[in-house]
């Protein structure tokens, strides 16, 4: 029997004003949903779902919203468990004071980590309500049957949730060490009403009317406009600073210098632009910033010639001197997030009359991290700081750090007024922490029957998760020794060979690096899938047949994706004429998400361009909570695949980052976008896994393999230009 108690915690945080609330504590699963820096303790429950005294349902979003619409999927789960409609749920993005700390929104982990806890919280609430219904109807618990929005008895006596709650606050305590109530979401036998349907994302109306509120849209009385100078790399130090004329700018309010921080506050955005343009800084970079330096640092061949790479992921009966049929090096470029929203934050220090001394509005992937860092930065206690999590105009891994928030906090404190900071587009390109460039050497040999006998894959990449300045200096060497989980994504191929070695090294590069959609997944799988395609073609084999054969039956879900994508692509014939080709690729992300992609391309000799005409994508990420949003993510990943394969070229030269805006860093446009067909493989009995960055691992090699099919040209370097083929 569920224990009903009151909890001051929720009353203090304004959660409970009558109604029934679940206080759901994560004990067993704490690691999976823990923020990067805050582990929930036994006392910090996560109260996410509530039936209010009028019978309506309030749900706090546990994920930051950045277009992945994971919260809509979680709301579908709540609706399923409570027998209500999605429209019956009032969804609220909580502040850091509304609920206990929750994990950073990253790594496509939202449905993986939160679907079960969310289902358990809602199911616990449902069963608590059932107990109340039993009392109210004078029946035993087993006689109380589900009904839409409440319960009923066999003789059709009905009671709604609204009938069961009153103004008294009831807290239901539950944790995941206790026996779980029945979870409708995860019952494969059950015919579901909410889970598995194409639900329209919550809040979509605001996105088409302009009413949606991103950080910079938050109305703020008396706000001033601020910005700080961004160094070319975070390790740079100021050698000279000239601010003459800044204070004379019309609309100028304050110039703030604090160590390497140089910022300005003005009354209007144009005054701020004018004042910032007068600041001249020279930097001691400590390391040269240019492409040659990057190429030198990731020179995998030089390093492998010297001996083993630093980390070994796989080593089984490795033979260095096999008769290599494939011995190719693949180079993958640096890429920028280039999210449509330049990041923004608003900071406001209170006069002491409010509940918090510092309020921050920001679109961060990690609101609780921002709260903690702001407290450390200002010397305030964490209780004095609140972060209002706003919708992000694109995240893609680039919005996890306390940076624009810090800019706003420092400047707001200096002027004792609320300050809004929004990075310029150039700031975004300079400081968003790129996906590192990488170089991959792949060697493959076969036995007499043509099966893989030897596999030797070595690569060097810039750091991903443990990049410079992402961790305290003292911690970096320790963390790196343990291995960077971002750097190893995608490195283990789904193919079997008796003799295998996979080794890598991750290095510092002269630009700031970090997490970017799929991490090392897309670069590594580009190399693997290109090499396997080349081997098949050279042996006169069909690449799809060859890859399936080399999985040796050990990758049934991936095999199904590949078979289905071949069938799908076959429904449309390639145009006749020269320069048309079709390519395939497949991949696994995080051991749980499977994808295969086909690309139809045209190498157009007259227009001198490579055009992707059509892509098919088959994706299996387990249970499809919202198939339409799985398709949406796959479609977006196809756009990113075209960008990575053909367009995006991050330029560094002359000790500068040259890519500064969309006019010199091309991302996919409408005219570049192929038509896309997506098929989702639903697996009702397999818990949902991530879908946000899966298809990107297979898209770029599918395009490269299509170019090979059309022209015989094997792309060894991304992005691929038309001129590469003709030369």
């Amino acid at each position, binding site marked *: 029997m569920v224990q009903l108690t009151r909890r001051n915690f929720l009353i203090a945080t304004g959660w409970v004003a009558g109604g029934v609330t679940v206080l759901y504590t994560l004990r067993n699963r704490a690691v999976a949903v823990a923020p990067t820096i805050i582990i929930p303790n036994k006392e910090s429950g996560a109260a996410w779902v509530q039936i209010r005294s009028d019978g309506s349902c309030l749900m706090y979003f546990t994920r930051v919203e950045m277009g992945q619409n994971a919260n809509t999927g979680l709301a579908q789960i709540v609706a399923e468990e409570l027998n209500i409609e999605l429209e019956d749920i009032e969804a609220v993005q909580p502040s850091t004071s509304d609920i206990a700390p929750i994990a950073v929104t990253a790594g496509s982990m939202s449905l993986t980590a939160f679907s079960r806890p969310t289902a358990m919280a809602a199911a616990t609430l449902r069963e608590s309500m059932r107990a109340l219904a039993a009392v109210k109807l004078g029946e035993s618990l087993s006689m109380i049957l589900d009904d839409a929005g409440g319960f009923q008895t066999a003789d059709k006596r009905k009671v709604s949730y609204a009938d069961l709650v009153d103004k008294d606050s009831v807290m239901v305590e539950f944790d995941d060490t206790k026996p779980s109530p029945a979870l409708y979401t995860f019952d494969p036998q059950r015919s579901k009403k909410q889970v598995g349907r194409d639900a*329209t994302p919550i809040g979509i109306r605001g996105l088409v009317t302009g009413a949606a509120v991103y950080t910079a849209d938050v109305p703020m009385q008396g706000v001033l406009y601020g910005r700080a100078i961004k160094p070319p790399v975070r390790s740079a130090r100021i050698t000279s600073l000239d601010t003459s004329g800044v204070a004379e700018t019309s609309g100028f309010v304050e110039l703030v210098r604090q160590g390497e921080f140089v910022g300005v506050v003005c009354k209007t955005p144009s005054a701020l632009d004018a004042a910032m343009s007068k600041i001249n800084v020279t930097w001691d970079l400590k390391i040269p910033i240019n492409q040659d330096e990057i190429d030198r640092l990731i020179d995998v061949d030089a390093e492998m010639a010297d001996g083993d790479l630093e980390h070994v992921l796989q080593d089984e009966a490795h033979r260095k001197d096999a008769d290599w049929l494939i011995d190719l090096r693949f180079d993958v470029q640096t890429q920028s997030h280039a999210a449509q929203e330049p990041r923004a934050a608003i900071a406001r220090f209170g006069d002491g009359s409010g509940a918090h001394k510092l309020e921050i509005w920001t679109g961060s992937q990690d609101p609780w991290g921002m709260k903690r860092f702001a407290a450390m930065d200002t010397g305030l206690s964490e209780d004095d700081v609140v972060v209002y999590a706003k*919708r992000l*105009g694109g*995240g893609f891994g680039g919005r996890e750090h306390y940076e624009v928030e810090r800019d706003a906090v420092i400047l707001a404190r200096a002027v004792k007024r609320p300050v809004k900071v929004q990075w*310029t587009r150039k700031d975004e390109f300079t400081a968003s922490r790129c996906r590192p460039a990488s170089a991959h050497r792949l060697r493959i040999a076969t036995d007499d029957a043509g099966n893989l006998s030897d596999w030797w894959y070595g690569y060097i990449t810039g750091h991903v998760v443990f990049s410079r300045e992402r961790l305290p200096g003292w911690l970096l060497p320790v963390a790196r020794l343990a291995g960077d989980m971002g750097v190893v994504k995608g490195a283990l191929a789904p193919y079997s060979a008796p003799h295998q070695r996979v080794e890598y090294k991750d290095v510092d590069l002269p630009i700031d690096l970090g997490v970017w959609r799929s991490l090392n997944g897309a670069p590594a799988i580009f190399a693997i899938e290109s090499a396997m395609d080349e081997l098949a073609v050279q042996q006169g084999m069909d690449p799809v047949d060859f890859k399936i054969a080399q999985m040796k039956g050990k990758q049934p879900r991936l095999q199904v994706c590949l078979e289905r994508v071949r069938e799908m692509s076959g429904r449309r014939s390639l145009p006749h004429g020269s320069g048309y080709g079709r390519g395939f690729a497949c991949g696994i992300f995080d051991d749980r998400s499977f994808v295969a992609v086909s690309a139809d391309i045209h190498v157009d000799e007259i227009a001198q361009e490579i055009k992707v005409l059509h892509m098919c994508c088959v994706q299996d990420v387990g249970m499809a909570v919202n198939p339409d949003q799985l398709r949406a993510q796959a479609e977006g*990943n196809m*756009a990113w695949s075209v960008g990575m394969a053909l367009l995006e070229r991050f330029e560094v030269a002359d000790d500068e980052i040259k890519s500064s805006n969309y006019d010199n860093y091309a991302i996919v446009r409408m005219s570049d976008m192929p038509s896309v067909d997506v098929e989702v493989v639903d697996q009702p009995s397999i818990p949902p896994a991530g879908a946000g960055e899966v298809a990107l691992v297979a898209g770029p090699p599918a395009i490269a393999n299509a170019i090979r099919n059309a022209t015989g040209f094997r792309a060894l370097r991304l992005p691929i230009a038309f001129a590469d083929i003709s030369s």
Partner: protein
Amino acid sequence: MKLKINGVERQVAADWQNENLLTVLREHFGLTGSRFSCGIGQCGACLVHVDGIPMTSCLIPVSEVVDKDVLTIEGLAAEDGTLHPLQQAWVDERVPQCGYCQSGQIMQALALLQNTPQPDDADIDRAMSGNLCRCGTYTRIRKSIKKAALVMKEAG
């Protein structure tokens, strides 16, 4: 200094007369549906109509649109809240992901349909290729434009 925004005459206060149109819309009048993204007219997130012509408002000094008619995304739905057929198509096709660019996309699509009521794929490519969407929602945008065009044709 005054201009007409979504049919309503508005006075620009002295402090804001040196700003660009986007800043005035957002910071002065609180019409935040038009958004800042590139600042150089390269992405279309700030797109509005000035006297019926689509323009990137981040590049226009507000002084240049004095006495002109400005239409922003906030002025597109009917007063009773009924969505414009383009907006409705955007909802029906579930276009937005992060959503940041979508106001500009819809305003550009509106200009397209005003000039070319039944656009083909090449028309859509031409008209829409200045509006960037990092999330890559282009296939759904294309579908929505065609759908809205049909709805508007049937409605006459």
